[in-house]
């Protein structure tokens, strides 16, 4: 009888310990997941993106100056050409007035 009681005690203790082991594992699992949720993940913008953006605008400014210079060279000649085309071309037109 005593032996049976001792055996039951051994088993119960083992079951208690098993329950504690699983509870501790579940706590640890929760901690691991929370830590993952709260862990900082670092990523930085490429350093050269601002410089690249600035270069795009600077290139446009240079193009603007180049286009302006070329256009100004043609301006007067083109204005005379257009005057001739406007005056000599078929640009008149009729409409119903009322």
């Amino acid at each position, binding site marked *: 009888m005593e*032996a049976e009681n001792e055996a039951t005690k051994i088993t119960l203790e083992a079951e208690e310990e098993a329950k504690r082991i699983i509870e501790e594992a579940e706590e640890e699992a929760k901690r691991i997941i929370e830590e993952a949720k709260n862990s900082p993940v670092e990523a930085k913008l490429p350093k050269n*993106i601002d410089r690249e953006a600035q270069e795009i605008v600077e290139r*446009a400014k240079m193009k603007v100056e180049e*286009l302006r210079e070329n256009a100004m060279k043609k301006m007067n000649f083109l204005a005379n050409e257009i005057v001739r085309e406007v005056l000599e071309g078929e640009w008149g037109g009729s409409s119903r007035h009322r």
Partner: protein
Amino acid sequence: MSGEEVVDIDKNSETIVRAILKMAEDRARAIRKEAEERANEIIGSAKEEADIIIKAKRERIERELREEVARKRSAAEVEANQLILRMKTELLNELFRRVNQKLAAISEGQDLNWEYKELLAKYSLEGAKALEEKRVYLMGRENDKKLLESISKELGKRDIEALVNDKTIPIIGGVVVRDERDMRRYYNTFDGRFGAYKEAKEIEIIQRLFGEA
């Protein structure tokens, strides 16, 4: 019961007790082992889940960064295009301003390359022919009244009865020819001609002004 028999019974009881305790200990070991295996599984799955969470966070941040880079690049390109477009608009307006100035100089007789009266005569005849009326009216600037009077006489020689309208119009130059009841008009003003020209040729003008050739 003999003394020998008593000794045998004691030995048997001891053996049974040991067997019972051994079974219990074996069972306890099995329970602990099973619990440890289950605990390892729980922690293993948590680690996998944590890895997935971190991977998803990293992918989201990297995607946001890529979007930020694209946004910055796109904003710079928009600004660049606006600079170019603004300059083109400005120069195109300057070109049109010069054309208007030159047309005004022609109608004021300040440009010796053009004979304004000839242009007015040509435009008046063109308008009268287009309207196909027996009698037409010529409308123009206050300054052009005398020229139009003279032109109306020349049109008379071509069997076109042309009268100069008393009412003048605020235009750069040219003429509007109308029928007697003012139901139809033929616009041959510098302003109207230039407007129609611009409408038809604006893209070509831009190419000529900013193109390579």
